[in-house]
């Protein structure tokens, strides 16, 4: 659970806002090569970014639910003989279109930010 001091720290605030804004893009991107289940998405994300983009289950699953309801991902249940059923997520054609649009938007934004921050500013 989020501690109050974490909520109030402005630096954690921007990190949280950035994650919140890009999580759909991140999840769709990770689902692009093929189907996966929730745990795979979390661990892949943590491993590939050395923990910088680590997400909690409480953040990831609502995003998957939202993508499912919006028709961007399809789900498939797999029920093993023993153990609990597992829910696999797969990107749909609508999801791929969404992924392309979000990727374009992110690239434009990120390029603009980099350009802005790299430019040296004279003291006025």
């Amino acid at each position, binding site marked *: 659970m989020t501690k109050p001091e974490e909520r109030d720290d402005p630096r954690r605030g921007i990190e949280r806002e950035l994650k919140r804004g890009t999580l759909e893009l991140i999840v769709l991107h990770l689902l692009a090569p093929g189907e996966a*289940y929730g745990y795979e998405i979390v661990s892949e994300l943590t491993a590939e970014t050395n923990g910088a983009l680590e997400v909690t289950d*409480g953040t990831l699953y609502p995003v998957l639910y939202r993508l499912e309801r*919006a*028709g961007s991902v399809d789900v498939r249940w797999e029920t093993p003989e023993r153990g609990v059923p597992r829910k696999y997520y797969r990107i749909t054609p609508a999801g791929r279109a969404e992924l392309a649009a979000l990727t374009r938007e992110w690239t434009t934004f990120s390029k603009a930010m980099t350009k802005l921050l790299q430019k040296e500013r004279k003291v006025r």
Partner: protein
Amino acid sequence: MKLADDYIRSVTHCLPPAGPMRARIEMELRVIVAEQLERGRDLDDVLRQLGDPLTLAESYLASAPLVTAPLKRRIGAKLADMAFVGIAIVPALVMAGRALQPEMAALVVVAGLIGGAVGFGAGTIGMEYWLGQTPGKRLLGLQVVRESGAAISLGQSIVRQIPILLQMYWIDVLFAFFTPRRQRAFELLSKTRVVMVTPTSDRSAGEAGGTSNA
């Protein structure tokens, strides 16, 4: 599994009681928890990862955009509720009026009307809190939620009905004609809204809130 059950219940209790969402999210969370436990993780850790129940509920709620109930429907629902109460009370009052002396009958009618009004207010408070809707709202596919889409608290349900209990309902209702989300004054105050119960397949709702190819 009591701890897990309690956690899941406190999440689903934040979701609106009307509509299919509670059942869906409950199932979703059961599978998530079971899967993590099977992987050998500690239950405390699993629940910590899922986070604060209200925050989690509100993250799920973000997937279903709220659709403001049109005023016509709301008026229809209110008239239906009044008709239900009328059907219950009026015959009893008419019978009392016939059976009793005129003075006594007048007293009984006045008491009946006051009792009916108080019962109407109290019933609305209880039903909107426990069920998220009154029979009239159910008939017309409406429900009462917080501005985040979560289920309302008992306190909010009471504040919503204060204008009825204080006989200032009509002034309160006028606000709904001018506020963007069609909220009465005491709905603004209690931070609640009346919205459409989202249909079972909410794909169209998802599309409305999401994709743009700009």
